[in-house]
């Protein structure tokens, strides 16, 4: 479904992503791990179009999407959440999600119908399935950090993605919130059949949910494979898992 091939990206001579390889099949849950500054977020930004790669190919459903603007990539079926909370802080929770549903329904340029009555059912369904119903009318900027991270996902789901990219979905969450996010990711994968690509520092979470793990260091892909293969790889143990596993 998604194939990242030989992708490179430099900033002022610094190779943030250097020779990254990644393959995501339909229905998989794939994790990207690696130390801080390994280039995980940069890689995601390249896939979703926030950045343009210097070279390499990013193939999504047999089409090279490298260098496309973010809105086009989104319309192809890739949605994402951001590592640092990135929502519409002045809108309510409900309106936050509705923005992406409106966009998905191609009604962004509809000038005269009442927004009040547009996309209500779809938006409510998403909000309910993520457990945000009680907070639907709150201004999103006033939510707790954990709730804002969940809202991130809700916004991304508004576009009904085939591939959902989550950049550290549990960063800054309490242990309880992390646990419920894990459950949420599982149900998105199982019940909705959404393919998930995420990066995460919580190794326990990564190994408990991912079908496949890709390890990055210094912008390079060290290994890509099922969890046990990755766990037993020596290079990974030295670089990242601290020599033990």
């Amino acid at each position: 479904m998604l194939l990242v091939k030989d992708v490179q990206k430099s900033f002022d001579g610094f190779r943030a992503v250097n020779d990254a390889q990644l393959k995501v099949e339909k229905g998989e849950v794939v994790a990207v791990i690696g130390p801080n500054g390994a280039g995980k977020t940069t890689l995601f930004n390249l896939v979703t179009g926030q950045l343009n790669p210097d070279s390499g190919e990013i193939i999504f459903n047999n089409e090279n999407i490298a260098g496309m603007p973010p809105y086009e990539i989104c319309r192809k079926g890739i949605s994402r959440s951001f590592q640092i909370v990135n929502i519409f802080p002045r809108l309510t929770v409900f309106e936050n999600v509705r923005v992406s549903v409106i966009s998905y329904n191609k009604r962004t340029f509809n000038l005269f119908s009442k927004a009040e009555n547009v996309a209500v059912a779809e938006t409510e369904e998403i909000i309910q399935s993520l457990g945000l119903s009680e907070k639907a009318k709150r201004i999103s900027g006033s939510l707790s950090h954990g709730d804002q991270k969940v809202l991130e996902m809700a916004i991304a789901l508004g576009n009904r993605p085939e591939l959902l990219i989550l950049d550290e979905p549990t960063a800054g969450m309490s242990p309880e919130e992390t646990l419920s996010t894990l459950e949420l990711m599982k149900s998105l994968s199982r019940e909705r059949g959404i393919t998930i690509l995420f990066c995460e520092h919580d190794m326990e979470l990564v190994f408990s949910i991912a079908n496949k793990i890709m390890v990055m260091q210094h912008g390079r892909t060290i290994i890509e494979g099922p969890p046990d293969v990755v766990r037993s790889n020596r290079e990974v143990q030295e670089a990242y898992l601290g020599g033990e596993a």
Partner: protein
Amino acid sequence: MIKKFSWKALFLGLAVFVLLLFVPRYLPRFQVYLFALIFATGLLAVSLNMVLGLGGMYQFHHAVFYGIGAYTVALFITKTSLSPWLGFIAAPFVSALFSLVIGLICVRLSKLYFGMLQISLGSLVWAVVFRWYSFTGGDDGIHGISVPDLISSTGGAYYFSLAVTALCLVIMFRIVNSPFGRSFQAVRDNPERSEAVGINVKRIQLTGMVIAGIFAGVSGSLFVVIEGSVFPELMFWTLSLEIIIMCLLGGWFTFLGPMLGAAIIVLLRTFVGIYTEYWTMILGIVLMLLILFLPQGVLGFFQEKFETDGMKTIREEK
């Protein structure tokens, strides 16, 4: 910015509208003229706020589209033998066209750079109008424009301005509360996130500019009806600044705030202007007080006081 539809607001709006219908009957001519001028200027300010407040774009030279609307009507009436009404229909289209062209060039840039480029392009239009004596009348402008009899009297001009302004406000209110309006607000709050949910940010900004330009053009055509003349100052950058001040003064996160701001400025200019030519000094003091005590603008302040507005909640919880 989001003002939900309510029966109370509708009733209040209708009541004000009905009251305004009786203005020419009971007030002297000069005050009727002033009211009409406030409608036209207020419509201009609200149209600017469609991009400034709703879209968060630094539209620094909005007066250009106002001037173009006014000149379109003036030139239609003085240079062609077509029905003058056609001029009024053409004005918003010509303004929209200029918005589109200037917008296409400007939306490539963002924030302040957008505004600066717009000032330069707008000034270019102004310079052409200022110099092209054979066509636009140059710095003299065009005077004694004879609008159709129906709207040439003070009362006629008043009713025409009232009707057109009310109609435009209703349309703009619908746009603000449409899916487009909501998406435009989302772009204002977070363009990066908007792109990530599939919104073409540049295209929505360009659409917003064209919409604002259309209504600015309409208000420009009202100016011709009220004053019977046009001059290059209508598209000079200082007027653009004044319109921005109207929006800030009235409250740029409210729908009708800019209208109120326009009323305050027009009245200040008229009545303080009688006593001193330095009326802008008073305006300066008013602005300073405003920034210090009512940063939300006058209407923004009252709306926050009487309604549980979202912004209030967010400030209290932070």
